[in-house]
């Protein structure tokens, strides 16, 4: 494919090339990524993407290292308390894989579509953690205007979510051919197969099928109003994670400037479940736990969410696996990670 890697890269990346191949590695190597907010999940994402060998990575965070950062942020040490965070982190990330072009931005994290399109246009994708809902909407406007991908996360104790907006992703995948071949047409709310071909793979000594998937994404604000869940079966609706309406409610309360309390959240969750067309799955224990641990991070939760996000970015870049569409919930209490196509 005209995509030869150097002998050094071949030796260093051997075990991952066995997963996504030299072509995939080359795509990863040419990716230009911006990460906003270097919290615990951000730390994990940066670790994973740096190890995988992405082309360039810009970290943007204006924070000063505080006590609460010393929970899941392993690029920091106790001596960093009170210092600006990114200058502490930068050399340690670079040391992990000097091949990645790393730079930092310590200016105040604020952006508007009107003013900052120029800054964002050099990136292929943007990752952001723990933004306010207002910031998230503005960022989403920017990524849409520039047609770049957006991945965001939010974490509260044992719980968290990831949302992504890849706008449209059209990728052809190759799998072993099954007795019944794939059909052209929609196979879920946001995705359809647009082309199917097959041939015999001499190397693998088996018939393979190539199918093109068109995956359409929505803006964050539109997913909040999604009717997609109404098409689920009754049982599936009953099994929707109580965390989904909770996270949507938190975002909406922020957007409407309503203070987040036990009562306001309870009321909102009830409205949201009705609107999403799912059964009343209000779980006050979980609501209380989320409220009690807003933005508190522990290492394993950050590792799982940051691992899932980085893997999704790599899947999108390497074109080996379908990207997640479009909400992923993590419940670290019962070990579930459902995905909702909103």
């Amino acid at each position, binding site marked *: 494919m005209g995509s030869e890697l150097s002998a050094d890269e071949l030796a260093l990346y051997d075990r991952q*090339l066995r997963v996504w191949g030299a072509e995939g590695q080359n795509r990863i190597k040419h990716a230009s990524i911006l990460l906003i907010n270097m919290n615990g999940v951000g730390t994990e994402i940066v670790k994973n993407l740096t*190890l995988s060998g992405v082309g360039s990575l810009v970290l943007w965070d204006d924070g000063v290292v505080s006590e609460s950062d010393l929970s899941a942020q392993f690029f920091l040490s106790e001596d960093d308390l009170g210092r600006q965070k990114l200058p502490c982190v930068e050399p340690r990330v670079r040391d992990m894989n000097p091949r990645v072009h790393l730079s930092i931005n310590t200016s105040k994290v604020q952006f508007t579509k009107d003013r900052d399109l120029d800054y964002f246009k050099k990136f292929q994708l943007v990752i952001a953690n723990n933004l306010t809902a207002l910031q998230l909407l503005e960022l989403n406007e920017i990524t849409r205007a520039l047609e770049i991908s957006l991945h965001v996360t939010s974490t509260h104790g044992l719980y968290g979510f990831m949302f992504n907006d890849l706008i449209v992703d059209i990728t052809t995948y190759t799998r072993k051919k099954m007795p019944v071949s794939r059909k052209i047409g929609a196979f879920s709310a946001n995705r359809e197969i647009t082309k199917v071909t097959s041939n015999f793979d001499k190397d693998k000594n088996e018939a393979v099928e190539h199918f093109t998937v068109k995956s359409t994404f929505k803006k964050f604000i539109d997913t909040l109003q999604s009717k997609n869940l109404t098409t689920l079966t009754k049982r599936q609706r009953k099994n929707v994670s109580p965390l989904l309406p909770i996270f949507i409610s938190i975002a909406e309360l922020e957007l409407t400037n309503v203070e987040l309390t036990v009562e306001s959240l309870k009321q909102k969750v009830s409205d949201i479940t009705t609107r999403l067309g799912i059964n009343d799955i209000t779980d006050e224990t979980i609501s209380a736990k989320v409220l009690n641990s807003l933005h508190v991070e522990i290492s394993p939760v950050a590792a799982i969410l940051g691992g899932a996000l980085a893997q999704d970015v790599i899947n999108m870049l390497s074109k080996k696996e379908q990207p997640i569409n479009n909400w992923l919930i993590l419940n670290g209490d019962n070990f579930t990670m459902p995905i909702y196509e909103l």
Partner: protein
Amino acid sequence: MSRVEGLKCVLGDDTYRKIRNAKVLLVGAGGIGCELLKDLILLGYSEVHVVDLDTIDLSNLNRQFLFRHKDIKQPKASTAVNAVQSFNFFKTKLVPYQASIYETDLFPMSWFEQFDLIFNALDNIQARSYINKVALLLNKTVMESGTTGTNGQAQPTFPYHTECYDCLHRETPKTFPVCTIRSTPSQPVHCIHWAKSFLFTSLFSEDDEPVVQPEGKDTGELGTDNQQEIANLISENNELVELKRSIASEDFVDKVIAKVFTKDIENLLKISDLWKTRKQPTPLEYNNQIKEKVLKISKEEIGTGQREWTLEQNLKVFIDSTLALQKRIAIEKEIEFDKDDEDTLNFVASATNIRSHIFSIPLKAKFDIKSIAGNIIPAIATTNAIIAGFSALLSLKQFDESYENRIQNSKAVFTVSNSDKFVSPSMLQSPNPKCATCSAVRGVAHFDTSKTLNDLLGALQSTYGLDEEISLSLGSNLLYDIDFDDNVEKTLKEMGIVDGVLLNVADETDKYQSVKGGDLKLPDIKMAEKPPVEEKEENDQDDEEDGVELINDNDDDLLIVDVKEATSPDKRKAKAQDYDDTHVTKKPKTDSEIEIVE
């Protein structure tokens, strides 16, 4: 919020307090191990002991994030422990060991006793199986985990309450009949085995013993009963042994090429029965003219081996690597195949492709051949981080006062590639009643080894309610049964019952499955009743003897069960069903094992 308040708020005061006092063992500081060590110290565990025999390789650095280029060849355990000190926010005490976990002098059962939990972050079946047995002896919960590429799983095992590591039937490595490898290859993998396990081994790493003996081998293993073919296999082999004697000669490489790629193929063609239904191979044409052309090929043309080489390029690599190995063997005497030893890999890759060409099999790039010849397990940072994260989260459930709750709240977590979920948690399965490992009851006994065997028998009988119809053995060595009482006056020490040995006690009546005894302190284990006896064909098979074997010598995180099983809990169940319905291939042990501690 302070770091302590943050942890308390998420874990709850009770779990937080217990974790801050918990001492745990982490076996393995590789892909999952590095991630898990980070998670454990950031959760505030009081003390973590880390065991790993390995040193760091370049190919580890794409995921084992605690290691740097300058750490290559350094021990993993101490390097990992040093690396995490910079973020040891809760002052966890860390103790590294560069040692094999099997070393009973260093790690006796009494050493394992100190840990509240054992975390496995291993890359091989043998070590997992060993820790499993330790856990069964000491009744310890093990947090098990494994990954292959984007697949992974994490789950705790509770001895005698949930399935143990050995409860699942594991597929044995795929083997090929000798004749497929030696006479009638049809796939690249056949040629890789021929190049690695036959040609390379015969020329560079074995004594002058012919591999195929004229007698005593059954034809099932050879995969043929064609006498002409068998005779040819033997003479082909003997000629190669003969050829090896001239390894120091200048024209050695030419002789090898002429024999294995031309003459051997011509001989195969004479066995006409072989080619009635197969495409005939074409012996390699090789002469001075071709040789001259081959020798002119430059290093640049050969490249890094990501592309397939032409036949001539393969010949060039074959000649160069053979010459290099020829030089080395004069000093090294014997060379083993190693995927990271370029000479050996080049030899195997080029020999594979030349043979593939002869048999009209597609040629492969060196990069791809390395994967099969080196049994490389794909490994990435993200899956290891996710699985280690689940292993650490699952450990939070192990501090509940109720053992039942610990089991109920734990899950077996598998990654899946579904579009509606990222992982699939399933309930922990009950132990497989036919599991040879956990169906026998185990415990640790504390003996004064100057006591006699008679004293031990008396203690066993009084503690467990057994009569004299019991047998005692150490491994396959019978010490006592009702018809063999020669040893009863001997001391335990004389009988070899010393610290660290496994003693088998079997009830010869039909009542109990197994056992456990005054001043001989026997473990408090409950005798399990024997299940109804089913007539099954007993077949003590030895898996390692069959045909050509894929030997797993990879250095990475091997999945606990195979990938197909891991990706779907449902398939896994189906598998367990298969296992129940087919004939038992291993004799279920009906005795118990007792670990002796002085």
